[in-house]
C-alpha cells in the first residue's frame, strides 16, 4: 500500500516537474447577452502584477471594433492593464493619416488617455514603413523588436514579423531569447503556428521555424492573430497558443472543431484577452464585445 502511494506520489511530482506548463481553465458556451454593470473577471488583480491585454485583427473602423474598444475600457476600469500587445492587422484597407485616426486613435483614445501603451506587431494587412514609424505603436522604427515592460515581474516580450521571417530575423530572435534572463519570455506575432481556422489554420512554415526555439528557451505562451476568432489551444508540447484575431474582424463559425487543438474558442463575437503575470503564474480572461467572460484560466510557466 505504502509502495503504491509512493509510486503515485512520484508520478505526480514527475508530472509537475516535466510537464512544461500546467493549465487550469474554465470556458463557457457563448451567449450574446447584455453586459452586467461589473464584469465577472477572475483575475487576482494584485498591485505588483504585470497586467496586459492582447488584441488582433482590429483596425476596421467598424461599429464592432468601437464597441469592443468600449468594452476594453470598461474592463480597464476594473483591471487596469498597463499595455496592449497587438498581434497584427492593425489597419485594414488604406493607411492614410485619417485611417490611423479612425481605425486606431479614436476607438482607443480612452485607453491611451488612461496611460495604456500599445505595442504593435505587423500583420499581412499592415504597411511596415508607415506603421513601424508610427509613434503610438511603439515599434521604434523596427519591424521586429523586444521590450521589457516596466514591472517588478520578470517578463520580456518578443515581437516578430511573421510574414517575412528571414534567416536574420530568426537568428536575431534566438540571440535575444538566449540573452534574456526573464522568467517569462513571451513571443507574439501575426500568423499562428497552431490554429483551428477553416480559413487559414495552423501555419506549418512558421511553426517549423519558431517552435524549436520556443521549446529550447522555455517559452510558455504565444499570442497570435490572423484567424478572425478567439482560440486557446490545448498545450502543444507544453506551450499554450492563443489566437486573438477578432478585435474588429470576425469570421463567424470558422473554428474547425475537428482539429483537436481547441481548448476554448469563440467564433461568434469580437473578443480580446487580458492577462496577469505574478511570479510563475499567468492568469487570463477572454472577454467578448457583449461583455461576456467566456474563457478563464491559469498557466504555470515552463522551467
Amino acid at each position: 500500500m505504502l509502495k503504491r502511494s509512493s509510486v503515485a506520489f512520484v508520478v505526480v511530482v514527475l508530472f509537475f516537474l516535466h510537464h512544461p506548463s500546467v493549465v487550469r481553465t474554465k470556458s463557457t458556451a457563448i451567449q450574446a447577452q447584455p453586459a452586467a454593470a461589473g464584469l465577472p473577471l477572475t483575475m487576482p488583480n494584485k498591485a505588483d502584477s504585470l497586467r496586459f491585454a492582447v488584441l488582433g485583427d482590429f483596425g476596421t473602423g467598424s461599429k464592432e471594433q468601437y464597441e469592443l474598444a468600449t468594452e476594453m475600457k470598461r474592463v480597464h476600469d476594473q483591471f487596469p492593464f498597463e499595455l496592449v500587445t497587438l498581434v497584427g492587422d492593425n489597419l485594414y484597407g488604406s493607411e492614410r493619416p485619417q485611417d490611423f485616426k479612425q481605425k486606431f486613435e479614436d476607438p482607443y483614445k480612452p485607453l491611451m488617455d488612461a496611460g495604456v501603451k500599445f505595442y504593435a506587431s505587423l500583420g499581412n494587412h499592415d504597411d511596415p514603413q508607415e506603421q513601424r514609424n508610427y509613434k503610438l505603436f511603439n515599434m521604434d522604427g523596427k519591424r521586429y523588436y523586444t521590450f521589457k515592460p516596466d514591472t517588478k515581474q520578470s517578463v520580456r516580450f518578443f515581437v516578430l514579423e511573421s510574414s517575412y521571417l528571414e534567416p536574420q530575423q530568426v537568428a536575431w530572435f534566438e540571440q535575444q531569447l538566449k540573452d534574456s534572463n526573464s522568467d517569462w519570455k513571451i513571443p507574439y506575432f501575426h500568423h499562428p503556428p497552431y490554429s483551428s481556422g477553416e480559413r487559414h489554420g495552423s501555419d506549418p512554415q512558421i511553426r517549423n521555424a519558431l517552435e524549436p526555439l520556443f521549446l529550447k528557451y522555455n517559452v510558455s505562451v504565444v499570442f497570435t492573430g490572423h484567424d478572425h476568432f478567439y482560440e486557446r489551444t490545448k498545450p502543444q508540447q507544453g506551450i499554450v497558443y492563443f489566437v486573438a484575431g477578432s478585435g474588429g474582424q470576425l469570421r463567424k463559425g470558422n473554428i474547425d472543431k475537428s482539429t483537436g487543438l481547441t481548448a476554448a474558442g469563440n467564433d461568434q463575437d469580437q473578443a480580446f484577452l487580458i492577462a496577469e503575470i505574478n511570479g510563475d503564474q499567468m492568469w487570463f480572461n477572454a472577454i467578448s464585445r457583449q461583455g461576456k467572460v467566456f474563457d478563464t484560466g491559469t498557466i504555470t510557466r515552463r522551467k
Partner: protein
Amino acid sequence: MMKLDRRSVIAVAVSVSVLGGCSRSSSPPVDQSKAAVPGTASSPAQAQPVNEDAKALAGFLDRVNQYVALHMKLENTLPKLSKESTPQQVDSHQRQFAKLIQDARKDAKQGDIFTPESQAVVKKLISRIFSGPDGASLKASIMDENPGVPNLKVNARYPDEIPVSTIPPQLLQGLPKLPEEMEYRFVGNNLILMDTHAHIIADYVPNTFRQ
C-alpha cells in the same frame, strides 16, 4: 565585364548552395561559412550550371545595389523622419519619395533588375522548393489573401487594397539576401522586388509557379 562586390558573392554562395539540392523545408538554416563558393562544385559536370546560376544571381544583386544607391541618394534629398513623425508626415514622405524614384526611373521596365538569366534562376529555386514535401502548403501560404492584380507595373505603388503575401522562411533562405530597403513579396504568382520605404514595385518575375 560585370563588377561584383563581396557582399553579392557571399549572398549568392548561400543561394546557390540552396539551389544545389536543399529542398526540404525542415532543413536547418544554411551555414554561410560552409556555403559553396561559386565554382567549387565537386565535379566538372556540376560546376558549369552552378557558375552560371551564381553569376546570374550576383548580377541581380549588383543591380539591386545600384538601385539602392539611387534610392539612398534620392531619400537623402527629403527631410528625415523622426520618432515624433505623424502619420501625415510619414505618408507624405513615402509618396514624395515614390515620386522621386518614379521620375528618376521613368523608363524602367520589367526585367531591368531581374534579367532573364536571374529570372530563370529564381524560377528554378522556387520550383525546387515547391517540389518538396511541403510544396503544397508553401504555395497555399503564399497565395493566402493574395488575389493578385490584373496589371502589375514596375515603378507603380504597391496596391493599397491588397495585403502583402507571406514569404515562407524556406524561400527567404534560398533567395539572395536583400538590403534593408528592399524585400521580396508575391502578387499573385509574380515575385516582386519591393522598395519598402517608397512602397513601390522596383521589378518583378512573372509567373514564378503554376497556380
